[in-house]
């Protein structure tokens, strides 16, 4: 159990670490803009090396795209505008967090729907089972038998 926990923890650590910029580009920029650059770049997938964000990747395209983001921040674009710029060129695939729309409904709603279905069947099974149990009072003969059995066990104990 402890080993499992340690393994889980080890798997979690890299996720917790904040993405560092892959290369040292000229960063003579104010800290707010630098922060925005890193945040934006971390949301966007590098299409060359698909399991890295634009912030982490060393691919030439990622370097160019960071430059683009940088310029657009300098030009006063909002985060939203910059993300839209990327999406119109590279599609939703650049977003690590897919948007909610017709083609992604299953993705977003699926798990919740599955949970609801499971809860529904669970509750229904419970009701069906409860209905099947018949409450029936004991007959006099049965009661007497039960009391005899109880009495006999009591005697055995003492």
């Amino acid at each position, binding site marked *: 159990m402890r080993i499992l926990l340690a393994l889980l923890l080890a798997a979690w650590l890299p996720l917790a670490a904040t993405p560092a910029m892959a290369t040292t580009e000229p960063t003579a920029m104010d800290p707010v803009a630098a922060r925005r650059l890193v945040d934006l770049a971390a949301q966007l997938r590098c*299409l*060359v090396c698909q399991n890295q964000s634009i912030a982490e990747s060393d691919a*030439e*395209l990622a370097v160019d795209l960071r430059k683009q983001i940088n310029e657009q921040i300098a030009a006063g674009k909002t985060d939203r505008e910059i993300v839209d710029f990327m999406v*119109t*060129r*590279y*599609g939703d695939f650049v977003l690590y967090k897919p948007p909610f729309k017709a083609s992604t409904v299953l993705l977003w709603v699926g798990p919740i729907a599955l949970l609801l279905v499971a809860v529904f069947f669970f509750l229904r099974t419970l009701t069906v089972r409860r209905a099947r149990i018949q409450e029936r009072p004991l007959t006099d003969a049965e009661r007497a038998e039960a009391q005899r059995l109880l009495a006999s066990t009591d005697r055995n104990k003492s």
Partner: protein
Amino acid sequence: MKRIGLYLLPLAAFLVVAVFLLRGLWLNPREVPSPFIDKPAPAFSLAQLAKPDAQFAPADMKGQVWLLNVWASWCVACRQEHPLLVELARNKAVPIIGLNYKDKPDAAVKWLAQLGDPYDLSVKDLDGRIGIEYGVYGVPETFVIDKDGVIRFKQIGPVTEEAWRKTLLPLIEKLRSA
């Protein structure tokens, strides 16, 4: 009978999931669908490779079905598709415009002199900016652009004989007759 149906439910669910996963095995994650399909090709104006004084803009190709082929002399896969492009040019199959992506003009000119020049002309995208405008994320990529300047298809990676025969040529013929 109803009970059997209930027992088969997990099996059915498993099969559905299995079919989806199996399908996923054959999808190529490198082929990201282009958001530009059926959208106008982004406008640009760039200096030509052979004639640095002359410019080229996609609007110049209005009324023709043409290919925009993104290439570079440093690109290995471009070498692979190049003979096919040369052959297409020799047969005058379709006008091909080259977007020379993040390349050194000297190296690009030498490359064409060595391997043959299939392009009606090439333009220089020195810093890759137009590449970004077109959502290029790898070289080579080839766009099929129709008479109205609308992008109809994007070939990611080299144009193979098979891709030409099965996809590009039929599409070009359809667009021409449209």
